[in-house]
């Protein structure tokens, strides 16, 4: 068996360690004897819906969003939409998630059209509140930054979120999970992410896959099922994954006092 992973915009949309998701898919397939080919699909490269089994896109800087937006609409859009409608697996994080929705209203109020895979739209918090982002403090005040814990079906997932945009699901949209700690889509309705067919959009960095191996395996499985029919994945020894997940969960739910206080005093 072979899995073809389409890694979208590795150089401009992989700011928050999301490359770890790619490594995780590669290793977890390798350990099971499944071949993996990674296509690096940069700006200007097209997506072949018959070739890719799994699409991954990560978070990027706001400044690159317009470039990526143009490329999504005019170069990759058709390929991605065809692949997703045909049942290919996809995992879009943060800026990737935002640009796969209907539109994204930026901090300055411009509206970037999205790919429309997810029935959702995103508005930057600064545009909602009319905040001008001219200092670190102001930029921080509009961002949702911190640990993110989500209930996904019967499982608990843990990661980290860092976003200025607030995403709102539209009628008929299926959320990816329920927020247990953190902000998720918009810190108002308690939902996190969005699902369409086998495509998942989420704010979960961390990166999401290494510490949530069940999620990684879910995407490997749906990707392979589309090509090979029903597949069963061999069990792996996930002791180290689970122990890292538990520690991250502890950190996410505990309030650390001392260093945070010192830091806000400017020590360090």
């Amino acid at each position: 068996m072979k899995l073809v992973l389409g890694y979208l915009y590795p150089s401009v949309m992989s700011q928050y360690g999301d490359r770890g998701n790619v490594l995780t898919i590669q290793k977890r397939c390798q350990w099971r004897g499944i071949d993996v080919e990674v296509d690096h699909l940069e700006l200007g490269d097209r997506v072949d819906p018959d070739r890719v089994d799994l699409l991954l896109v990560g978070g990027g800087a706001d400044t690159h969003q317009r470039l990526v937006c143009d490329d999504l609409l005019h170069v990759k859009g058709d390929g991605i939409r065809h692949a997703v409608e045909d049942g290919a697996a996809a995992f879009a994080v943060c800026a990737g998630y935002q640009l796969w929705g209907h539109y994204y209203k930026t901090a300055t109020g411009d509206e970037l059209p999205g790919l429309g895979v997810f029935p959702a739209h995103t508005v930057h918090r600064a545009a909602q509140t009319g905040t001008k982002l001219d200092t670190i403090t102001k930029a921080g005040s509009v961002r949702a930054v911190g640990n993110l814990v989500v209930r996904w079906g019967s499982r608990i997932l843990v990661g980290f979120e860092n976003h200025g945009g607030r995403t709102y699901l539209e009628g008929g949209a299926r959320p990816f999970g329920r927020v247990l700690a953190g902000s998720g889509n918009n810190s108002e309705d308690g939902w996190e992410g969005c699902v369409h067919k086998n495509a998942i959009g989420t704010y979960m960095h961390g990166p999401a896959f290494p510490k949530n191996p069940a999620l990684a395996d879910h995407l490997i499985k749906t990707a392979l099922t589309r090509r090979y029919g029903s597949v069963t994945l061999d069990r792996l020894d996930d002791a180290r994954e689970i122990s890292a997940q538990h520690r991250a969960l502890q950190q996410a739910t505990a309030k650390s006092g001392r260093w945070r206080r010192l830091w806000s005093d400017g020590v360090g």
Partner: protein
Amino acid sequence: MKALGETGGSQAGRLAGEPEASAPRRRAWTTMTARAAAVNAGKTVRFMSRALGRGGGTTLPGHLADRIDPGLVAALARALPNGCVLITGTNGKTTTTRIMAGAARASGLEVITNPEGSNMLSGIATSLLVRANRLGILEVPASAIGIFEVDEGALPAAIETLSPRLVVITNLFRDQLDRYFEVDFIAHLWQRALSKVGPSTTVVLNADDPQVAYLGEGTSARVMYFGVEDRQWARPALEHAADSRRCPECSHDLLYELSFYAHLGHYACKECGWRRPDPRFAAWKVQLQGVEGSESHVSTPAGDRLLRLPLPGLYNACNALAAAAAASCLGVDPDLVQVAAQATMSAFGRFERVSVGGKQAVLLLVKNPTGFNESLRLVLSASGQRYLLLGLNSNGPDGRDVSWIWDVEFEACAGRIQYLAVSGHRASDLALRLKYAGVRDPGGRPEPASLAAPAVEDIVATFFTAIEQTPRGETLYVLASYTALWTLRRELVQRGYLAPFFRQAEVAR
């Protein structure tokens, strides 16, 4: 009319007798009183903090004084006879500040500087207020100059408050995204801050870093570039940790003719033609002598110079180059930079050497993917066997988000490490990262025994176990995030293996 309850009764009374001048003079008097009160409160807090053994008292005094009198820092900075210098950048600002301060001292200047880690405005305020007398007036000789390290995010406020004569920017990498959000945002803040300074200020910029070099375009300050011209350290491709691959002018792809590390190199935009500026201070030949240090042949406007440095790696050679460029803008001879560089003691976690029971350890602070990659490269370039201890915490100063370890090239360690241990609150994240990097024990076991065991979060315990495992004659390399290293360092100080760093800074002064 005499205001009731006015402090300093007799003075206020005299003022009351002169109605014309009364209001401004009283304002001047209350300003003076507030200033003195601010300085005295700050000094008291600093004295108590040290007496109670609560550390160096390097930030809180300045913070408090600033709350009492918000104009204090600007006023003290204005009173510096030779003005002040601000040094910032993601990596290398501490080392650059130290070398520069050393060179300035060697040239006869009296240097006022902030100790390691106290690089917010409150830290700079503390270093100034300890030099003020009880009336709040700066008491320094005519040869005094301020040379301050500044946090990247604090640079705009520092420029506005301190009106520096010289600003040095070493580089801009991705670092603590939970605190700084995006690299481009910091670049944007710097650009705005520099657009407000005039030609009386000089800006020293790294020509090899496109986002830093581009800062020279939108400012009316004098601009001086430094950069590396030696092609032997160029690598074939940009690393994954490169943050800035796009032209700051037109957003198109930058073409790299040479790439040194991260996104530092020789670049040009194929679309708009914007390219790396030619540096006036250029390292033509850099000889890296492993972990011992480096030797650079540098061309300067004052002629060619040799720059020897006891700190290892190309990145430290770049720091020395930045210091040489900055020092020459102050009129300090580059030869004195050479003297200062050779005498530079390593700062907190910048290749600090420790000897424990006849065994050697080196402490390296790692804060971001670029710094971690360079530190790993250094460890792997060392001769002999490799003993490595990694520490990762996720407290505020470390960055609460640990995802960046997935952008570090741990794959390069696979099969090349004799002993490897992980520690810190997020030891399990490190262990997981190493598993996916395929890091295995060269002894043939599936993976290092230290990794097979449950991760030990206590960095002190892990350190003493690791140093026991390290044979005499070999070196244990400790690569740890800020609070993990701080915890270890504090223990090593308590056991007498190291000096506290605020005392170290005083010795340097």
